[in-house]
């Protein structure tokens, strides 16, 4: 059984009476300028990662590469070998932390969202209101009081300091609850109840199949955040560090290292972009229900 909940508007079937020629010209110019401003730094980053050393040092600086080379990428393992930890370890840490944090967040947050959206238990509205307030704060704003709590719980310098704080991210829970409100009909819940299904059964057989778009959205947002996280004073051991931390130590190496810094940045871009491409149509469907009603 498949629910068609959102009208897919592919091409407007109505003639729009509100479009003027002058307006269109302004429209496209703004869009073009904004697009160039957004994309050029990233293009520059990719182009520079293929520049040989003499082109990196050339004066005046050039935007484009004349003789592209892979040397910046090939130099990465030897650049990092000065630190005793092999690059594969950083890579493993990044992947492990991002995947574990994302999975635990998705499971915990969607179960909580199920309660907020479909149960009638006492206190659910108050709790959800608090979750909504916490949308205003991200981990950086709360870093110092959290640091105090990490110390008390002896989480400093362990994997847990990356993973555990990712579980209660308010954004994921909020989006999930809004999506369930809009797309899981109460009649469906009632039917499952009559069949004698318990909460877990309802969640697995009724809710989960409908929630695919919301899952994908949480996957994108959570993965992206976990992938780029740079801990502030909570990780000291070299063997627990992730790729973004390594990147900042390479880019601190000055202009001769800038090629390799760009190469690491390009490599770091790939996983979030892949996740976005896989999830984008589902993300759009979820986001259309994200409104806050007051």
């Amino acid at each position, binding site marked *: 059984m498949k629910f068609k909940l959102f009208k897919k*508007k592919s*091409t407007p079937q109505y003639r729009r009476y509100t479009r003027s020629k002058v307006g269109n010209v302004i429209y496209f110019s703004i869009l073009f300028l904004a697009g160039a401003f957004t994309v050029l*730094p990233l293009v520059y980053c990719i182009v520079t990662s293929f520049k040989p050393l003499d082109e990196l040092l050339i004066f005046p600086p050039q935007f484009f590469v004349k003789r592209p080379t892979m040397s910046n990428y090939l130099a990465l393992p030897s650049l990092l070998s000065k630190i005793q930890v092999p690059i594969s370890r950083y890579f493993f840490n990044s992947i492990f932390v991002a995947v574990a944090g994302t999975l635990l967040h998705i499971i915990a947050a969607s179960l909580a969202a199920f309660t907020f959206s479909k*149960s009638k238990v006492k206190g659910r509205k108050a709790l959800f209101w608090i979750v909504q307030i916490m949308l*205003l704060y991200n981990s950086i*704003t709360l870093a*110092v009081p959290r640091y105090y709590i990490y110390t008390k719980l002896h989480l400093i310098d362990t994997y847990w300091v990356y993973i555990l*704080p990712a579980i209660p991210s308010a954004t994921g829970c909020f989006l999930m609850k809004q999506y369930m409100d809009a797309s899981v009909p109460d009649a469906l819940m009632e039917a499952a109840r009559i069949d004698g299904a318990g909460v877990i059964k309802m969640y697995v057989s009724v809710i989960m199949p409908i929630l695919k778009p919301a899952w994908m959205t949480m996957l994108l947002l959570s993965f992206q955040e976990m992938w780029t996280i740079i801990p502030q004073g909570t990780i000291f051991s070299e063997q627990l560090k992730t790729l973004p931390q390594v990147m900042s130590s390479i880019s601190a190496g000055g202009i001769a290292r800038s090629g390799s810094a760009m190469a690491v*940045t390009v490599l770091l871009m790939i996983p979030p972009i892949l996740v976005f491409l896989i999830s984008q149509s589902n993300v759009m469907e979820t986001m*259309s229900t994200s409104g806050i009603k007051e």
Partner: protein
Amino acid sequence: MSSKTNLKKRRRTTSEDISFYIITIPFMLFFFLFNILPVLASMTLSFFDYDMVSNPIFIGLENYSRMFTGDNVFMKVLGNTLRFSIIAGPISFLLSFMLAWMINEFPKTIRVILTFIFYAPALVGNAYFIWQVFFSGDSYGYLNNLLISFGFITEPINWFQNTQYNMTIIIIVQLWMSMGVSFLANIAGLQNVSAELYEAAAIDGVRTRWHELWYVTLPSMKSILLFSSVMQIQSVFSVSAVIVTLAGYPSVNNSVDTIVSYISDVGTARYEMGYASALSIFLFFMVLAFRFGIGALLNLVGKSDN
């Protein structure tokens, strides 16, 4: 109909309710530990003098009075944060809506490509250090090089150390990476405004796209706009890493340091946990005030003034 008759009676806790409580525990446990407890802990610690080594000493409101009477750096970073947020916040909010609105009418494939382009800086996260190359302080910097070759300046400008320019540059970089969740939400929301509404408005005499935007599009987007403004408030008030990377900490005369950078300096470098907590609580309530102020403002959207 069963829910109507139940309304009169007081609901009794059923076994289903207990299951619901149980499945909420994992999320709420960590939510309490890492979101609510930090706020409660800072509230308590903000009344103490505490360096994480010796015992905390109760000092009442001294930490709060110190902020406004005895701490010039705080007044400076508060000013910076407000200046930064009041400029970058509304611009990024409007921009995320305007761009979403502009790409909304393209066919699906082009729309997805444009969405990807504008979302890319936020998506890849840590790429903001690229701007260091563009605004580099020596003549290798692209902007300096350009300005020198056109004869506007003779000596390279040290952009991030120059208090005249550094705030503007930081704002530009923030805008560059601000097309995040709120931008996606706006695109999705616009896709869901029904085509019939536009048709009806055209029949009622709406003739320009600006009128259409104000009377049709914006009112049906109100709740999405509130969500997207919440996400933009969150991002402007927590900016710290971008500024520390580009301008360093402390920046020249503290000219671009924000409250968040200052709090982490006081807390994790100087270990003045009591004072850092008081600063966090101040920030907490300031952000909350902005959130509800904007909620009230958004209620005015789509109201006719004639």
